[in-house]
């Protein structure tokens, strides 16, 4: 597992705080991460149920369980990334480099980094009906940036593909990804792709 210092933003006081990006997570790491996140998921679920918040306003990945994804890390093409800040896992991402190829017309068939899963820790979610603002900001951005970096390193010129959950579509569109339609094989989620030019734009400060 390799590590690199970065920064994320703590909402309280709006300050930049040091964090570490790890790549090469092991299956056991995902089990530990879910052990740390699971109680918060359950508490949020109980609060949402207790306050009769409509299902449409629930966080879409509330029911996820990273420990169930641990087996996927056994594949050679899979890489797990995680961000640690103040001794807690703040976000996790799993990418694949072989099983998916580019769909953008100009890039069709070329290799890309596919973001299998990306999620911020449940205490970082903004859940308006519960008045939860989220502790750390930019966690998703930093993780997605790692996927673009991985693509450049692999020689894939920044090509990245992913299936965004409905509430995250706007974020990826604004990051420069192109929506390429709903995918019936993936619960009808919209498939998005970042091409080389847009990747350059995304990484440019």
């Amino acid at each position, binding site marked *: 597992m390799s590590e690199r210092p970065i*920064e994320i933003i703590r909402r309280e006081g709006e300050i930049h705080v040091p964090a570490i990006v790890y790549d090469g997570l092991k299956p056991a790491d995902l089990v530990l991460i879910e052990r740390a996140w699971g109680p918060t998921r359950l508490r949020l*679920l109980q609060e949402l149920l207790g306050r009769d918040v409509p299902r449409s306003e629930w966080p879409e990945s509330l*029911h*996820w*369980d990273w420990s169930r994804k641990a087996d996927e890390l056994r594949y050679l093409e899979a890489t797990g990334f995680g961000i640690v800040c103040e001794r807690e896992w703040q976000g996790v991402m799993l990418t694949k480099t072989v099983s998916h190829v580019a769909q953008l017309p100009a890039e069709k068939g070329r290799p890309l980094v596919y973001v299998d899963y990306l999620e911020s820790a449940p205490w970082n979610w903004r859940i308006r009906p519960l008045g939860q603002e989220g502790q750390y900001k930019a966690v998703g*951005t930093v*993780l997605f940036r790692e996927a673009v970096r991985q693509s450049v390193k692999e020689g894939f010129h920044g090509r990245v593909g992913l299936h965004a*959950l409905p*509430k*995250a579509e706007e974020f990826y569109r604004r990051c420069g990804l192109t929506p390429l339609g709903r995918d019936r094989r993936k619960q009808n989620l919209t498939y998005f792709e970042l091409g080389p030019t847009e990747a350059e734009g995304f990484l440019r400060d």
Partner: protein
Amino acid sequence: MSTDARFEDRPSREWLRRMAELEDRCESVTAGGLAHDLGMLEAALSEEPWLFGRFIQFARRARHLSVEKLAEQADIDIAEILGIECGANMKPAPRTVHKLAQTLGLSSGKLMELCGLAEPQDEGLRLAALRFAARSEPVTELSAAEREAFEEFVKVLSESPESI
């Protein structure tokens, strides 16, 4: 695109702040899947083995039945009901669940689902069960809130009665 210093280094603070604002304006950054087979709703239930026992206890008390009386009406051993209610018996026999459903006026199929004897089919049932779990505390008298949660759960459990 070439590998350059900008790409190797961490992003600038200005860029990060701009992106954080974008993240904030959008509702989520999650990518992956929605499928419940990735999910933990089921896991949450299976990790709450006391739920079935607590529910049976509530159902009995709401009907003003003693354990003895329920045992008699359902033709089940008192010890078996006590075991279920205190969570010691988390896998009751199908006959027991069927008899309890009959006596308490509930759908035996859904009760089987609740105690893990049948494969979960009904999303509404899982949510109702979680709602019940979230609101109920094992106390002597049912509070108004508990009664409401309980009645709501009973409603789901009583819908479309089915036989095993």
